[in-house]
């Protein structure tokens, strides 16, 4: 079969595996020069066909060229003249083998009897008046997509909120820290008492999430139904340093 056909590659590793297979060579012993050349040629072909060549393909091209240059050097020396141990292809080989395992696992999964493709079940609804045992298991994803839908129904408010957050999450973080420094432990709910609007509640909430994320605060409950308590998790100076390094949610990425 000599049909000319450009396969859709799932990524640079997929393309490399394809080339290795086509050349009938061993993954563990890749002829790096030849494979690099074919890899680059394929990228060129993809580009000439106006296919979107993702950044990962270009990163891999650079990696291949680098490995090639090292393989060509006499053993025991790399371009900096430093002692370098092992085969320069080793890391790439490891990644290829790992990717190949999952590619094969995916193929095996696809070969199984797949629901709604090969086999079908009966759909049935539980009569509502009979269902009494609480709610069916839900995922976090269900929860947040529900919230997103609410926000989308109110586009104006959504935009407003986002703008506001960006302005003041960091400010709010600082004022929360001051508060905690002064008061020691604080009940979670009380953080919202002073909020003048629901926008401020969101900002406060986000600021708290940020602080928890950089481990500036500890959040816990003393008993199951008890209040949620918050306190500083580190000296204030350390936290301020961490904050200076941390990129804050939605800030400064120009998006």
């Amino acid at each position, binding site marked *: 079969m000599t049909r000319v056909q450009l396969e859709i590659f799932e990524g640079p590793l997929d393309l490399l595996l394809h080339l290795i297979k086509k050349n009938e060579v061993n993954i563990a012993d890749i002829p790096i020069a030849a494979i690099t050349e074919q890899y680059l040629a394929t990228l060129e072909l993809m580009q000439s066909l106006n296919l979107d060549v993702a*950044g990962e393909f270009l990163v891999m091209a650079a990696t291949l060229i680098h490995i090639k240059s090292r393989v060509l050097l006499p053993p025991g020396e790399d371009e900096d003249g430093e002692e370098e141990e092992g085969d320069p292809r080793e890391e790439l080989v490891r990644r290829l083998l790992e990717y190949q395992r999952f590619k094969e696992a995916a193929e095996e999964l696809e070969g199984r009897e797949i629901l709604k493709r090969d086999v*079908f*079940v*009966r*759909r*049935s609804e*539980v*009569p*509502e008046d*009979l*269902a*009494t*045992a*609480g*709610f*069916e*298991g*839900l*995922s*976090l*994803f*269900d*929860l*947040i*997509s*529900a*919230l*997103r*839908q*609410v926000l989308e*129904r*109110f586009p104006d*408010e959504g935009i407003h909120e*986002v703008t506001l*957050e960006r302005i003041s999450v960091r400010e709010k973080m600082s004022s929360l820290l001051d508060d905690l420094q002064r008061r020691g432990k604080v009940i*979670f*709910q009380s953080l*919202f*008492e002073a909020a003048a609007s*629901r926008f401020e*509640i*969101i900002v406060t*909430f*986000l600021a*708290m*999430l940020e602080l*928890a*994320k950089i481990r500036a605060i500890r*959040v*816990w*409950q003393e008993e*199951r*139904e008890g209040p*949620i308590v918050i306190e500083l998790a580190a000296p204030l100076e350390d936290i301020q340093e961490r904050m200076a390094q941390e990129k804050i*949610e*939605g800030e400064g990425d120009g*998006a």
Partner: protein
Amino acid sequence: MERDRLKSVLESLLFACDAPLAVHRMGEVLEGVDKKEIASVLQELQAEYETSGRGFRLVEVAGGFQMRTPKENAEWVKNLFRGRPARMSRATLETVAIIAYKQPITRAEIEAIRGVDVDGVLSTLLERRLVRIVARKDVPGRPFLYGTTTEFLEMFNLKDLSNLPTLKEMEEMTLPPSQNQEPSGEE
């Protein structure tokens, strides 16, 4: 198509379809098969289920045929459903999501966000202990403020509230594939 094969296929169709299936629809699906033959196989199935005391019957109803459990097994089937959890309605899910993110929050505030009243939904949530009253708000009328419970955390597999996705994570997870080149270099 051989009769045995036809019987098996028809049985699959009747089984997979929860609504009554009209004979002409079966005819469409099995193009080329005579409707009379379909009807005769249906009769055969009907008799077979009846006499061999199967856990389902083939009933002619609402212009089509439908498999149903027999009346004498109704008690057990009801038992099965009785203990089963219900699917949370959209309204309930939205409301609990709003409470989770904006707690403590009053009913009026929830309604302002959802644009509809949440009376029934809120009492369901309180009943199922996913939401509780945490305080009263210091404004005229002193309305209740609602917040989520430990049961809420359990239900959504969260260690604590700080484990809720941030708005940004939420966007990443629910938006159609975007073109942003996120560095994938954590850990």
